[in-house]
């Protein structure tokens, strides 16, 4: 991995950073993800050719860093509902099992690479039949139709999607702020006042909740919603300022472009 990052607490190859964090030699809190992303983007710009493998590896590690960091930033404390706490621990155990599994297969993969590298030093004999035997060869085209041939050609020339940088591990974003704003504008006049918990009920993906939250902030900024929160980490109450008339499109324009 050629990407080197320089942060106040760490300077060196990017992939090593994850190892160090896991070994607690670098405090994750103090690592700015922004710095890392910047360093990486700079590296990409300097690159003459786009290195797909590098990009993929980066995204994977970055995703793990984000996940770890998000987890540490999760509010916790004495007020946790026992059910929630259990859930958090359960989730943690699952994540731990997943990380161990990931590491195991990473190791296995490097072993496979070694095996294949060793094996690639030998070439098989593929000379095939000598002239004298050629007339004996069984009929390979038996049962093959023109259509089979066409299908085979289509299969072969089908675009290979694997040349994509896959970003699935960064939760797929199903919701957009625009949509969330639109939904709120529809829902809120009817509901009047509601807690954030209520508003996000039924949403399972963290990203969807975040998008909802951003939509609320936006509407708050526009002055059509009021937000209050009595305790820190307490319930957030959202209420509609009923006298405000807004035109949908005006608002939505903010997000386009």
């Amino acid at each position, binding site marked *: 991995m050629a990407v080197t990052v320089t942060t106040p607490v760490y300077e060196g190859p990017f992939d090593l950073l994850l190892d160090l964090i896991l070994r607690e030699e670098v405090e*994750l809190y103090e690592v700015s993800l922004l710095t890392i992303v910047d360093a990486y983007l700079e590296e990409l710009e300097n690159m003459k050719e786009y290195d797909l493998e590098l990009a*993929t590896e980066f995204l994977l590690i970055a995703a793990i860093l984000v996940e770890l960091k998000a987890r540490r930033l999760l509010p916790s404390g004495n007020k946790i509902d026992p059910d929630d706490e259990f859930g958090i621990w359960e989730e943690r155990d699952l994540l731990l099992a997943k990380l161990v599994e*990931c590491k195991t*297969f990473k*190791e*296995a993969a490097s072993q496979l690479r070694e095996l294949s590298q060793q094996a690639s030093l030998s070439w098989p004999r593929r000379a095939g039949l000598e002239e004298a035997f050629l007339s004996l060869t069984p009929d390979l085209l038996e049962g093959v139709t023109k259509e089979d041939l066409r299908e085979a050609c289509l299969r072969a020339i089908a675009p*290979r999607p694997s040349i994509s940088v896959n970003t699935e591990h960064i939760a797929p974003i199903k919701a957009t702020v625009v949509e969330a704003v639109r939904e709120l504008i529809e829902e809120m006049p009817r509901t009047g006042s509601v807690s954030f918990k209520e508003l996000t009920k039924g949403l399972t993906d963290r990203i969807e909740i975040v998008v909802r939250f951003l939509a609320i902030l936006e509407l708050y900024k526009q002055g059509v919603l009021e937000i209050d929160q009595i305790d820190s980490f307490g319930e957030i109450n959202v209420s509609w300022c009923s006298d405000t008339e807004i035109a949908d499109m005006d608002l939505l324009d903010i997000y386009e472009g």
Partner: protein
Amino acid sequence: MSEEKAKLKMISDIDAEAHIRRAIEAILMVAIDPVPPSIFAQLFEVQVDEIERICNSMVDHYTEAELGFSLIRIAGGYRFQSNPEQAQWVERFILEGQSRRLTAAAMETLAIVAYKQPISRAQVSAIRGVDVEGVMRNLQQRGLIDEVSRDTGPGNAVLYGTTQEFLERMGIDSVAGLPPLGEFVPGPEVVEALERSLRVVADEVTIPATEEG
């Protein structure tokens, strides 16, 4: 008298074996893929384990002869191949290189399929934590994995496994020849470190301000 007969029989056995050896050598010369012992057994009307015994002694023989090539057991069969020590010369002769390197992602996906086969794409995705569709398709196009069966459960998911080509590329006889997965499970200190990194901090609810907000 009977001793002489026994001697004669032995000679004819050795003779028969020598014949089989030569026939095997000739066939391996024209074969394009590794030839499984069962094919030789069928051809010579000899038990498979007898063929394996003969072939294994041939493998040893060619190894000891220190030639530029050797006879090996690979992907469930036998084949002649150039020796690794001659790789630099063969490489210069065969200008067209070996098939391209696999990316780290492809290699990890391949490892999961190899060790967990038969396995569905969804199961591989679950382990990798990322969608593996593109990578799996690539591996399939390279002939390293293939659909081997269907899940009997609901949905009848396609199950994947590794191919002959995979075994050849890895230089092994069967997937049983892969190093045991247990060897790669991280040690307790690594697991502990991972665990620590995930610890839910109970008391301090310190949320430091970060640049990213």
